[in-house]
């Protein structure tokens, strides 16, 4: 039992009183205060003195004290036993001022009424207070909770009047009020005004009252019908309440709301109720928001900190963790880390796995490594990191990177049996870890392999045995057999590549062995988009600088030795020639062009030389096929390298025969290559010119071949090969009279035809004649034959000049005679022109002498009327004159 002392007042009239209602007695000196407090919460004038009606007294009202002490007022209006001076019935209003803060939390309005209903008030004003006794555990309100919940929600948005009462007693009404207010945070009671009945509801101010009808801004709620909230806040509040009622968790929500006793105002804090209830519902609300895509990190954080992870079931908590990780990424570990559990572990792995960006995956997974270590669960966490779900895609590489970092961060090789077993049993996982190590910490690969093997190499998988052999370099470790390598490659197709990488690191390519090299060449023969080929390219690109020096020779020796094995090696020997050269070309193409250009050129040249060396036995077709395949496999920008290599080969003695298979097989590819390469475009005519010269071609044919070569030589301003004229040394017609001179003249004409200026062409002819005749570049016989041809030509020129001289003299005589005739005729015509001019002048003078000169006499200033006709010359002139 709780006893509370409160202030009181009695408002009524004295018997036979002719004055109005007033405070007849009160505690202490609070008369003015009671008058001020009593007025605003008046329920109106009683409308009947009859009992048993809904509007019958007693009327109980609960108000609020406007002061900051948040005192609660309660007035109970009943009929007094006496009448006033006019014999009218008089009401007695007992007024109490209750300390809101001291009221027990479970005490409701009905309890207050029960406690105060029968308490006698002191007969006169005095200092004593009235004690009200409340039970500690008041009886629960028997009320339709769904109705109370709906009414409470409506009460949040507007004033409420409850109508439709049939015979509800005051206690039952107040019990209904209690049921309603229990559905609201307790703090609203500081602002709530209640009346068990009001007359003229429109002019009352109670927030919640019972009355005959709704009016003004009051929202009507039938006592027997659930109302429907209108505003969004109220509807959401109602929905939350209903959710708990449907779950039969009304006690939970009532206790929760009762815990918020901080005074609240309906007018200014309508949303506070929703916030408070949402706090209770925070866990579920947060999960709902997350699942509806409206999750907010602040609320999740608040739900976790205020409600704890136990407020969520396992599935919801997993979603919460997932949301936190998705929202905050790696930063979530500072908050979520304290809730470390297998659920969080799974959530982290899933979040990291599904992160769209690789670095984010790495950050998320890595951020929780210290958390897992702090909770002693690092082995399990890392094992989960590298273990995909059944049927799911393999784990991203970043997971293995995190594992690797965790492994390398350990001061000593950690036991981690779960992780080790997982990596050994699941080949892709183990391989991924080694690959990540090769990518990120290549120097630590032996350490990682050693950790994996753990000193027991006998029971390890084949792929690991192969890599362990190359990485360890331990003579005690047996060299893997081809069968083991095949098994390893079957387990891990990238074994050869990883082995190459490890061998590169150690500069121990001899440890690879022919079998692995052959697999590398096969990988190199894959299409450019093949991932394995890309890895091979990457590995070759990451080779140590071996372009020169003994290491380069060693590498080349190994590679070229391997290339020369097709006949000896059973796997390769079974391949067709075209397939082999294709793989070979692809493998060479894997060598990066930029950084390893020289290495690639030397590989290309070396392979071509190997094939050329086989030409006497197998012909030039394999070499041509190889070069053309290289041409196909190389991108267009790298064709110049191939052209240079071909030009180098063609420059070599005895290798010109390669030209014909290339031209025959290459077709347009070959023509484009020649057109795009200066060296080939200069080599090709030269070779054709030489071939033509050796094949007894005519001067005309030779001139057509020779002229472009001469132009190319002059364009480069230097010969790339030996001077083209040297090719004529083998020309059979060289010593024949006039043959060489004809060739020079025809070539000079062809040069002019190809656009060379005539003077330059003449200069070339002169130089060539000097080279042959004076310098004897083609030998003495050719010089003598040319000089003889020149002399004969000079004679023919002299004869022609004499004949022409005679013709000119004859023509000059004829021209002089014609000039004399013309001059005579001109003189005659001039004399005739002078005679005709003189005759014209004489005639003019004659006619001038014949015409008389007119006399000049007097003329009257004014004409008389007889001076002529006075009629106008025309009608128009006459009208004008009139």
């Amino acid at each position, binding site marked *: 039992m709780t006893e509370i002392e409160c202030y009181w007042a009695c408002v009524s*009239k004295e018997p*036979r009183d*002719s*004055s*109005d*209602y*007033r405070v007849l007695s009160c505690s202490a000196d609070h008369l003015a205060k009671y*008058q001020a407090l009593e*007025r605003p919460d*008046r*329920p*109106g*004038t*009683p*409308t*009947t*003195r009859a009992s048993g009606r809904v509007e019958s007294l007693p009327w109980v009202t609960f108000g609020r004290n406007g002061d900051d002490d948040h005192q609660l007022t309660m007035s109970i*209006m009943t009929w007094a036993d006496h009448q*006033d*001076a*006019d*014999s*009218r*019935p*008089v*009401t007695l209003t007992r007024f109490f001022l209750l300390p809101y803060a001291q009221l027990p939390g479970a005490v409701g309005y009905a309890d207050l009424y029960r406690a105060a209903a029968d308490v006698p008030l002191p007969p006169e004003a005095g200092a004593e207070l009235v004690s009200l006794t409340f039970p500690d555990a008041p009886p629960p309100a028997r009320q339709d909770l769904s109705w109370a919940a709906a009414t409470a929600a409506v009460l949040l948005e507007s004033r409420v009047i409850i109508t439709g009462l049939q015979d509800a007693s005051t206690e039952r009404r107040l019990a209904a009020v209690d049921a309603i207010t229990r559905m609201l945070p307790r703090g609203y009671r500081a602002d709530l005004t209640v009346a068990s009945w009001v*007359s*003229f*509801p*429109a*002019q009352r101010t109670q927030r919640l009252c019972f009355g*005959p*009808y709704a*009016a*003004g801004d009051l929202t009507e709620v039938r006592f027997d019908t659930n109302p429907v909230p209108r505003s969004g806040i109220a509807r959401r509040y109602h929905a939350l309440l209903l959710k708990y009622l449907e779950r039969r968790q009304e006690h939970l929500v009532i206790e929760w709301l009762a815990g918020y006793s901080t005074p609240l105002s309906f007018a200014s804090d309508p949303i506070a109720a929703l916030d408070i209830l949402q706090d209770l519902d925070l866990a579920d609300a947060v999960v709902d928001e997350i699942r509806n895509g409206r999750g907010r990190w602040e609320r999740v954080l608040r739900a976790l900190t205020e409600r704890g992870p136990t407020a969520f079931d396992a599935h919801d908590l997993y979603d919460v963790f997932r949301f936190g990780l998705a929202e905050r990424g790696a930063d979530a570990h500072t908050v979520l880390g304290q809730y470390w559990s297998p659920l969080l572990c799974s959530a982290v792995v899933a979040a990291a796995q599904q992160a769209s960006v690789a670095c984010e995956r790495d950050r998320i997974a890595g951020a929780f490594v210290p958390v897992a270590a702090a909770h002693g669960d690092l082995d399990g966490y890392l094992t989960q990191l590298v273990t995909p779900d059944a049927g799911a895609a393999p784990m991203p590489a970043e997971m293995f990177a995190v594992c690797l970092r965790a492994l390398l961060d350990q001061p000593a090789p950690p036991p981690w049996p779960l992780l080790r077993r997982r990596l050994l049993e699941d080949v892709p996982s183990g391989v991924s870890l080694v690959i990540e190590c090769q990518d990120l910490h290549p120097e630590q690969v032996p350490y990682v392999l050693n950790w994996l093997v753990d000193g027991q190499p006998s029971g390890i998988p084949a792929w690991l045995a192969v890599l362990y052999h190359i990485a360890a370099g331990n003579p005690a470790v047996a060299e893997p057999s081809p069968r083991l390598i095949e098994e390893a490659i079957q387990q891990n197709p990238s074994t050869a590549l990883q082995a190459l990488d490890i061998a590169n690191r150690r500069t121990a390519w001899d440890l690879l062995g022919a079998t692995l090299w052959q697999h590398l060449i096969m990988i190199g023969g894959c299409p450019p988009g093949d991932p394995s080929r890309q890895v091979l390219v990457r590995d070759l690109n990451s080779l140590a600088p071996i372009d020169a020096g003994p290491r380069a020779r060693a590498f080349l020796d190994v590679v070229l030795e391997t290339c020369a094995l097709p006949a000896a090696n059973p796997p390769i020997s079974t391949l067709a020639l075209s397939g082999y050269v294709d793989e070979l070309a692809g493998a060479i193409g894997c060598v990066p062009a930029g950084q390893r250009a020289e290495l690639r050129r030397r590989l290309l040249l070396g392979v071509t030389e190997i094939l050329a060396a086989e030409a006497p036995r197998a012909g030039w077709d394999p070499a041509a096929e190889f070069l053309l395949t290289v041409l196909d496999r190389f991108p267009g920008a790298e064709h110049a390298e191939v052209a240079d290599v071909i030009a180098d080969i063609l420059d070599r003695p005895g290798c010109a025969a390669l030209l014909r298979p290339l031209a025959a097989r290459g077709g347009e590819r070959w023509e484009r290559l020649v057109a795009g390469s200066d060296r080939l475009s200069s080599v090709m005519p030269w070779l054709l010119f030489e071939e033509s010269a050796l094949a007894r071609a005519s001067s005309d044919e030779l001139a057509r071949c020779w002229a472009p070569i001469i132009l190319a030589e002059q364009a480069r301003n230097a010969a790339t090969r030996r001077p083209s004229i040297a090719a004529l040394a083998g020309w059979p017609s060289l010593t024949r009279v006039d043959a060489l001179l004809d060739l020079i003249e025809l070539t000079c004409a062809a040069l002019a035809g190809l656009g060379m200026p005539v003077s330059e062409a003449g200069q070339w002819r002169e130089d060539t004649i000097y080279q042959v005749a004076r310098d004897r570049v083609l030998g003495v016989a050719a010089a003598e034959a040319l000089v003889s041809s020149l002399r004969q030509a000079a004679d023919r020129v002299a004869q022609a000049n004499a004949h022409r001289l005679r013709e000119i003299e004859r023509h000059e005589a004829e021209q002089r005679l014609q000039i004399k005739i013309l001059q005579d005729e001109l003189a005659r015509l001039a004399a005739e022109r002078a005679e005709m001019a003189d005759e014209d002048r004489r005639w003019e003078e004659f006619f001038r002498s014949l015409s008389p000169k007119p006399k000049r006499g007097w003329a009257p200033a004014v004409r008389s009327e007889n001076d002529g006709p006075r009629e106008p010359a025309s009608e128009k002139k006459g009208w004008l004159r009139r």
Partner: protein
Amino acid sequence: VPDDKPPDDKPDVAAQRPYRQIHESAWGLMRELPAAGPPTRPMTDGGPTRIGAPSTNPGIGPGGYPDGSPTIPTQNGSAPRRAPVPAPPLPSPSITEREMQIALWGATSSGKSTYLWTLPLAAEQQGWTLTPLDEASEEYKVRAETDLMTEGLLPLPTADEVLIRWQLEKPPSVEGPWWHRREVPGSRIVLRTIERRGGDFETLTQSVADQLAHADGIVYLFDPDRELNPNAVDNVKFFIAAMTRLQRRSAELDRMIGGRLPHHLAVCITKLDALKVFAKAREGFWVTQSVQWPHFPQVAPHHAEPFFDWLCRTELGEAASFVRDRIVANFLPHRVKYFVCSAIGFGLHQCRQSGGRGQFNLSDFSNLTSEGDRVRSMPRPINVLEPLVALERSRRFSGRFP
């Protein structure tokens, strides 16, 4: 519902002169007064005219009627009878129409609630309609009429104020003898008042002061019965503070006219049916009898002010005189009207007379039961509607709104 039981506390009227004698004396006295009109003429004989409307005194034009309305010739050649012309309907009230704010002012139990309680009935009995304009007003009217007509209950002491908004409307009609028929246009009063307890005028809250100061008219209910009761608090206790505050607030609002209050005031001397009050009126020969059924005694309208003056000066003591003097001194004289009222009227004798409708009995005139909380028969209010009509007319004639 008339109370069949005879009144337990019959007024002691046997010692007084018969009412008929009083009537005849008064009637003779009135006929000797040159300026006074027929004292028995009810105030509402002509009906309330529409204030501000054109004069309805038509001169007879050459065509018979000034407005040229058709006439109906009679068969015997007598004067033509004018065809009844329906008067134009009143325009429907607009929300912009200004309400007449009336302050009901009076002491506790002076009859304010009963005044409003019986106002619907008075309006109905005089051909007016009363329409509530909001829920509270509707509830008030329904409750008043229900309690009054079913159980004869009078209002309980007012515990809290109620704002009442009623529209009183009288439809247009054609009145007068057949040779002088005239149209009486309709009238409308939009009433807005607050029923509050009389104690408020004693404690005088800000709400009371504001209501009085902003009111267009004030119906001041003067309860002479309170003054005649030696144990009761005088009216002046509920008057002085309110009057003083009213003056101050009106001055603050700059509404004073020549140092006087601008309000239109209807002073209602209430409870004419009360035993002591009626006796005093009879003693002063102020009571006349209505010529119309039920022939209730009344104080003629033009005698109301002298009656109040006489009552305060000679019968009720200095406190009442003080009230009267303050009213005269502080209000503009032409804006003060006096009425002698009785909200519940007099009771009718149980003996069925005058065509079975009952008749006034001077020996048993009270309309209250012995308990005093209900009426014996249907109330017939006296001068309940008239003060409002007079205030409305006065307000319109004043040409300005306070």
